[in-house]
């Protein structure tokens, strides 16, 4: 009997172009995970490889192996790693960027919070978008919470605090005007309900969604200011901590932990992790995403 085997099916290539990725990039992937907690899965490995190739061109290096040396043994390796991180995480963002995070929030976390005894009396929800950049995540949250305020959160006070280090980003965020690229994941339903047309290419967020959000400038490393960000139910800090070194990262995470209410959740970007930086948070799996949880007092797990 002859057995036919389709080569493409047997060895799915991580690269859409069909080329095989140099194994050194896997080593670099693991190194990047070790220093930053960012993990580029196999299907996204080519994105990391692209970033490396751009850096190699800039540095005039010919082979991935030479670049590996540059990231590991050369005296300027830390700087080089940082440059690579910038290269692979450049602020490309959009509204509705991570549906699994939104599903976890709406289908699991909000019902859980709403069932808490204290919440039933206060009926107040505070969410922080830390490192909000130009506001895409903050408005996404606002729109999703407005949807829930017609059902689960009827009569609740919803507050979203959105902060960023960069003044210009905060100003852009306040305007809430987005083009087709930022809106590529936004369904017609949300576009019609929460946006007005600015011109043929741009839409602007409606006042009712803006009303939920307070935008301000904040440096996450400013300890004094961080102390005042209390009483959060959920914190999103996606693709921000990658720019921090270990010590400051761990300090910021400690702040986040104390800023959260008991039973609150902390989300990172979809390929980020806390690694071993904090042992107070519990790692929680939701369908398609993970988050960190500050145990509730009643769970006795503090």
């Amino acid at each position, binding site marked *: 009997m002859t057995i036919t*085997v389709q080569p493409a099916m*047997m060895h799915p290539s991580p690269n859409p172009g069909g080329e095989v990725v140099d194994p050194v990039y896997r080593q670099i992937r693991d190194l990047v995970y070790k220093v930053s907690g960012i993990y580029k899965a196999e299907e996204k490995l080519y994105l990391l490889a692209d970033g490396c190739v751009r850096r190699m061109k800039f540095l005039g290096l010919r082979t991935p192996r030479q670049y590996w040396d540059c990231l590991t043994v050369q005296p300027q390796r830390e700087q080089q790693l940082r440059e690579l991180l910038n290269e692979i995480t450049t602020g490309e963002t959009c509204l509705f960027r991570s549906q699994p995070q939104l599903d976890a929030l709406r289908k699991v*976390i909000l019902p859980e919070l709403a069932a808490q005894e204290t919440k039933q009396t206060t009926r107040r929800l505070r969410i922080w978008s830390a490192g909000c950049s130009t506001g895409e995540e903050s408005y996404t949250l606002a729109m999703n919470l407005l949807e829930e305020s017609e059902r689960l959160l009827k009569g609740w006070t919803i507050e979203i605090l959105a902060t960023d280090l960069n003044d210009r980003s905060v100003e852009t965020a306040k305007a809430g005007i987005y083009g087709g690229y930022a809106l590529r994941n936004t369904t017609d339903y949300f576009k019609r309900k929460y946006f007005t047309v600015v011109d043929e290419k741009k839409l602007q967020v409606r006042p009712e969604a803006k009303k939920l959000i307070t935008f301000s400038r904040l440096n996450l490393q400013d300890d004094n200011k961080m102390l005042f960000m209390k009483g959060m139910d959920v914190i999103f800090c996606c693709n921000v901590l990658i720019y921090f070194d270990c010590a400051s990262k761990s300090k910021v995470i400690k702040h986040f932990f104390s800023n959260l209410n008991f039973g609150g959740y902390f989300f990172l970007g979809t390929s980020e992790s806390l690694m071993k930086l904090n042992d107070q948070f*519990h790692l929680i799996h939701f369908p398609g995403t993970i988050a960190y949880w500050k145990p509730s007092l009643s769970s006795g797990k503090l």
Partner: protein
Amino acid sequence: MNPSLTKTIRERVQRIKTMPAIPAVFLPLLKLLAREEVQVDEVVRLVSYDSAIAAQCLRVASSPLFGMAQPPKSIKGAVMSLGLRRVETILLTCCLGQAFPAKKWALDPIVFWRHSLGCAMVCRKISEKLASADREKAYTAGLMHDIGFMVNCLVFSKEFAPVMEHACQEGIPLNEVEQDTLGFTHSDTGRALAEKWGLADDIIEVISHHHAIEDSQAAQPLVALVHISDLLCRMRGMDYGYYERHRVDLIADPAWAILHKEYHDLEGVDLVQFTFELDEAVEDIHTLVSMVFGPAPVRP
């Protein structure tokens, strides 16, 4: 569970006399697997009775999940490169896939196999991180843990269909809906079939208690391993085809502590990194499932 239910399950499972599609080599293979010492020639001879299974086994052996770059030319060749026990588990995968008639399913069989093979793969991947764990045993346990669903589809089809529908609609874990509406779960029906088939005791333990580890008496680490893998699969795209409104704290799960007590090297496993690594293997699972069971479904 009340005794009359246990009796009903036993009686109905006894009715599954011959499954129309079950490959003839399947039950002898299970017997072979339960033995400590197995000769290569015995397996090769057994498989030579069924050329379709043999051919499928060779194709599956070359999937990325089983680690051969080139498809082996013969079962013996596969045994030489992969080892006898790995080839046995591949054979089991192929046989089990053919054991149930297509039209009886209350859930999409592709979804079911994606979860079962996914769980088998996750069990093995976790075992690979634990020096003293038996990887092929872990794989087999993961593969078989939900055979109760097949029993439900075959002999409780009328009762099971609305259970499945309700679970999907409400996003509730299937075993909870089974318990609430039927008074028993796929763990109970799976156990009856496993006993009828004469599966190894530790596999029966896994099938019976993977949702209620506290009830398990023996083989606790294996039951714990399957419990954890099952949850991970359901959280990482190898679920039952619907969104479970469910959060999972694996490290606080009693199963994690049981596993940790048995395998101290679990300490060094970075669960987040492991989770991300699994996502890479999901594609391989889809490929394997479509290879063994037909085209993979398009996920929304």
